[in-house]
């Protein structure tokens, strides 16, 4: 388990991180969400030891992270980059070897991973000759080639086509399933929502909310219901204990004071006829995000 407690970072007068604390559990895919300049990249750099914090601690399994531990981290920085004149395979093998893999094993790992990422045919091309999308895939290979035991990825999905997004999602899920803590940031909230077990929301250098997605939904999302009928749903406004949030002809979103009040709405709708659907509205991450950041 990767744990941050009270991590702070100051850039001159600006407090970039203010007592940031959260955990990334083993085998948990954790999404790291926040606006631009909220402190995501700074946090990740501190976890990787690339940047020194001004206070607080980062621990792995309860112990402070050593240099040896960090060799087992997989990192994809926000600012992408590989050696432009090195070949894809050569570059990937080089990084695996810097992490301590023997040449043969490094070679095997790299080939296997590049194949999976759809770069099997481009292994002998230089990085600079690849398209941006393929460079991005090579970057992912660079973060994963040493079979990391902790993954920290800064915006791994930006710039990827839908096929590659799919592949990378699969790879991340596999790494997490193998028991590694995985932390990644993304502005694509739909992907985060679909993929993540846990969420960490950061705003202005402070953690606004953190925890399992379901818990956050219960805490921050109000319970809403959606009704769609063939006829006009105007009668909803007259129902006792019901607060209509949105309304449009036969469609309405409402909050109910009690279970009984909600059941009464369904009974009334069935009695009036023409019910198309009656569902509990799913609180999206975007909604939670807006609420906690506000």
């Amino acid at each position, binding site marked *: *388990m990767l744990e941050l407690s009270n991590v702070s970072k100051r850039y001159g007068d600006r407090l970039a991180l203010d007592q940031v604390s959260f955990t990334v*559990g*083993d*085998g*948990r895919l954790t999404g790291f969400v926040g606006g631009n300049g909220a402190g995501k990249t700074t946090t990740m*750099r501190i976890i*990787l*030891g*690339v*940047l020194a914090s001004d206070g607080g601690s980062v621990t*792995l*399994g*309860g*112990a402070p992270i*050593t*240099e*040896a*531990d*960090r*060799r*087992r*981290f997989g*990192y*994809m*920085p926000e*600012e*992408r*980059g*590989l*050696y*432009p*004149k*090195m070949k894809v395979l050569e570059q990937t093998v*080089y*990084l695996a*070897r*810097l*992490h*301590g*893999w*023997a040449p043969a*094993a490094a070679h095997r790992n790299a080939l296997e991973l590049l194949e999976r990422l759809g770069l099997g045919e481009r292994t002998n091309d230089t990085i600079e000759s690849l398209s941006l999308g393929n460079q991005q895939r090579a970057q992912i290979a*660079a*973060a994963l080639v040493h*079979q990391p*035991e902790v993954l920290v990825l800064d915006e791994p999905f930006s710039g990827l086509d839908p096929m590659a997004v799919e592949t990378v999602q699969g790879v991340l899920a*596999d790494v*997490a*399933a*193998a*028991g*590694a803590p995985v932390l990644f940031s993304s502005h694509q909230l739909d992907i985060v929502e679909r993929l993540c077990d846990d969420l960490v929301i950061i705003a202005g250098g402070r953690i606004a909310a953190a925890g399992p997605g379901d818990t956050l939904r219960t805490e921050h999302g109000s319970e809403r219901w959606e009704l769609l009928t063939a006829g006009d749903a105007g009668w909803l406004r007259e129902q006792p204990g019901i607060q209509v949030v949105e309304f449009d002809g036969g469609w309405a979103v409402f909050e109910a004071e009690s279970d009984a009040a909600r059941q009464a709405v369904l009974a009334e709708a069935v009695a009036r006829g023409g019910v198309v659907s009656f569902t509990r509205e799913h609180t999206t991450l975007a909604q939670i995000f807006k609420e906690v950041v506000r």
Partner: protein
Amino acid sequence: MSTEQGRSAGRVASEASESRPGTGSRYGAGAPTRPATPSFVDSVSLIAGREITMRLRSKAFLISTGVLMLAVLASVMLGSIFGGQSETTKVAVIGGATAVVDGNDALEAVPAADETAAEQLLRDGEVDAIVAPAASDPLGITVIGLDSTPDSVVQALSVQPTVELLEPAAVDPTLAYLVAFGFGIVFFMSALTFGTTIAQSVVEEKQTRVVEILLSTVTARALLTGKVIGNSVLAFGQILAIAALAILGLILTGQRVLLGGLGTSVIWFIVFFAIGFVMLAALFAASAAMVSRAEDIGSVTTPVTMLVMIPYFLVIFFNDNPTVLAIMSYVPFSAPVGMPMRVFLGTAEWWEPFVSLAILLATTALAVLIGERIYRNTLLKTGARVPLGEALRG
């Protein structure tokens, strides 16, 4: 943590045991596929290896090295031609004159049957002169030329008295100038070439942002050390190749005399260069780390470039000035040129190179420490040039 592990399936979980402090890994402590954490030396040699491989693959590097080699070879050849190296002169000999010409290193005897045959050889240009027996001459021979006095033959056959000088000049001034120029240009070219290379390599990593991945894997110290060693090996290899080529050229052109006098000073030059280059490399790397774009390398490395250029000009202009040379031989930046020069001229006591070397070593250690600090503090600062004060403070 145990519940997390219990929930997860697959490779890592099945191998996971209790956390074992000291092994480094919290997961696969017993896993056979999990490599050991590479040591500092391992990392450095990988980084240095990459620097060397990539440089050797660069066409620009190979071409410039080739040009430098050709220049060295050409200057050795030119030295041979203009150095007035005495070659043997062919002379036609008639009869009893053979005894006089034989045993003279400067002359090669071409036997001729009689005077007519010898004259024919001379007119055909086969020989430069004829040496014929002459009973009336005190030496017993006559030298016959075609249209002018054959000076080299006359010289070779002359008897010269023993000459003794009361204050012999240790080294011919022209030769001293040539040697000074040689040390200066080789130091200047190599230090500048590889210093610039190292600067470019540092900025390339910053500009392409690959440095952040590298720093998350290895320490800034390992990265800097690997770069400096990789490029030092290349620079050193080039120096050795130049030295070998020059020595080979001197032997092939028969300039063995020059070689003998140069030996010790060349060895000192190589030793001083090896250490001095590490110092310059660290300074080049640190300067380059302060900027983020290749275009800014020139301006930011100017101070270090000056440190390389000044000794070059000083040694060329002041190689006959003992005071300037003595100072140069102790100032760390010019010692790699100054001290070997003094050793060559024979003006340095035996212990002087060692003292100068100690000063150079201490300065190099200091430069590496400061360089590493600047390098570490500025690597992740992209954008505008980082001011020196900030780079030192961090």
